[in-house]
């Protein structure tokens, strides 16, 4: 199993909380709620083959992923957002979604351990 420390870089999250533990916990809780929800929103848009909805889901994920600090996910998502903003939806973009969801699942799976570690 991948260690949470390899998946998360919480420097940004910490910088935004300014050392406030309550806010940090609130953000981590929100992350636990928002990541799976946004993942599902993305997959629903993919099922509907609604490229604009995929773009919106990807755009929303951009902010969420920034809090995880996971470069790989952020990078894949940036490519997906850029492609779907231009209306592109093909094999390449579908592969991006698959890869993105795989990384998000890893993050979601590791989040509880991370929260405990932080606590």
């Amino acid at each position, binding site marked *: 199993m991948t260690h949470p420390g390899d998946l998360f870089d919480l420097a*940004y999250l910490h*910088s*935004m*909380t*300014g050392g*406030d533990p309550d*806010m940090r916990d*609130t*953000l981590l809780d*929100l*992350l636990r709620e*928002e990541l799976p929800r946004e993942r599902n929103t993305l997959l629903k848009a993919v099922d509907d083959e609604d490229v604009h909805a995929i773009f*919106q889901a990807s*755009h*929303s994920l*951009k*902010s*969420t992923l*920034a*809090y995880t600090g996971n*470069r790989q996910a952020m*990078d894949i998502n*940036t*490519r997906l957002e850029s492609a779907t903003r*231009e*209306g*592109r*939806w*093909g094999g390449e973009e579908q592969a991006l979604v698959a890869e993105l969801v795989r990384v998000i699942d890893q993050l979601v799976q590791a989040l509880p351990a991370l929260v405990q570690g932080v606590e």
Partner: protein
Amino acid sequence: MNALPAREQQIHILLVEDDPADARLIEIYLEESGFGDWLIDRAQSIQEALDQLEEQDYAIVLLDLTLPDGTGTENIRRIKSRFPDQNVVVLTGFDERVFGMEAVQQGAQDFLVKGDYDENSLAKTLRFSIERQNFIRRLEETQKIARIGSWEFHPDSGRLILSDQVLALTRPDDTELKDGMPSVELNHLLRRIHRIALSGREVNLDTRMKIPGNGERYFHVQCRLTRTPINQEIVQGILQDVTDRYQTEEMRKSRDLARKSTEIREQFIASISHEMRTPMNAIMGLSNVLLTGSDLAGEKKQMIQAIRDASDILLGIVNDILDFSAIQAGKIQFREEPFSVRSVCRNLEQILAAKVRDKGLSWKMIIEDQVPDQLIGDKLRMSQILFNLLGNAIKFTDAGQVALHVDCSQRTRNKVSLTFRIEDTGIGIPAEAQQSIFEDFNRVKYQNKTYEGTGLGLAITRQLVELQQGRIYLESQVGVGTTFFVHLDFAVEQTLPNGHAVMEPVRSSEGAFRGTILVVEDHKMNQLVARKTLERQWPEVKILMAENGQVGLELLERNDVDLVLMDLQMPVMDGYQATQAIRRHPLARIRQVPVLAMTANAYVSRDDQLHEKGFTDFVLKPFEPDQLFARILQYAPIKTISL
């Protein structure tokens, strides 16, 4: 006043006279004339006189023209040929006064007719001869300084008298100048111009001659025909070495030509670059359009991709040439404006992300906490420096990592020295190439492969760093990687443009913002972060939260809002539509509210269209707290800020 030594004040005369009575008469006249302190040596023949002149300097030679070993003007010629500068006054018999005239023509200062002079005329003649001789010497010195020589040509006799300076200028390596003969080239020149002068025309020309041992020299020559008091024709002329002046003039012409050429080159480069950019933009734009079409696949897509990549490289080359030309012409100017160093680095990160990704490299960026964010300097040039170095790092790295590290080596309240470290795990630079890597048009070769580019990138980068009094250097190991170090100093921004708020450090205790901020953002985490960040900074701030533009407009109408933070992509009504509605609102207080776009897109944030669409400015997402606070303080109405 210092008295001259007695010996130097004494006038030493050589009397060349074989007749003891005539010699004694001279002495008597001199004693009676009160001529001064004089001393006479005596010679009784030309040979004896020549021997004594070898041994001793004489102010005057009083020369009898009838001597045992020579008569007539032959005597003066013999003395003058050996001692051309010698002051000679000739003594002639009453029937030989014609020889006296000839002697003067041969170089004697004057002549005295025996039996026809007394003590006064003797003293007067001698004094004048000394004065004339001194005057001639001073004139010759002046001519020497001015590199002017003179000559006389007597057409009747064919006699040519060249001054020492003419000989020195035209035969500088000749140790036998005393023969008084012109060089072959000078002789040729003089024959040509004498013909012109003798026809009554004045000669005034510049010419050049090969001078033995002194290369080719330029001369100004003037001469004309004159007549002596006894109506003899003489061609008199001067010759001046004007090589220095000529060369200076040539250099000035070359410099003017070079300047003109540079101006033409700059105009050409600017013009051609502009002309190239326009079609290149079309090629790149249309390539992008084709690439985004869904019907392109396989080989055609690769070909279009190749066209776009080649255009991208070409555009880089054009930009390099333009920059290089501007640096060469000293036309680079650096701005002094506030900027966020983190924003610049993040923009670069986004711009280069695709290249890093395409090469399968990993990317790392560390900006140390102690680096102040708000600096004053030229952010575009700083961005260009880092872009060039990071672009190279990616280009020359096939596997591994490219990293940007920003640290603060020195810091005072007003000034900071930043060190940018650009690291790669690429091919490395051999030690022998590390010195020349910053030179113009230096292109890296590695394993017989030459990488694309003009070879100007690093030269431009170095110039941009050094023109800002910075320093750039590198450490590299072949096969391991390269690290470039850039040291640049910046002023730390202390006050905002309105001059009312101290921005750094921004602390709630120092600058309390008591106004109302409307945050229009659909993302829950961003909403929370925005709210908490602002409330932590300014406990008295009032935050209104809207999840889309429509709700934002409604809140704006119902509340007195000082500033709006507006996300761009939102459901129902996006940030662009909401901002346009704000700017068209019938209530002035709403139309005039500052609206800051919140965007993660570096391209959008650089786009002037943001301003055209009604946004006051932008803040980048993810938020950089200092930048966010600074922007709010910058644009929020002054009445809401208290210190």
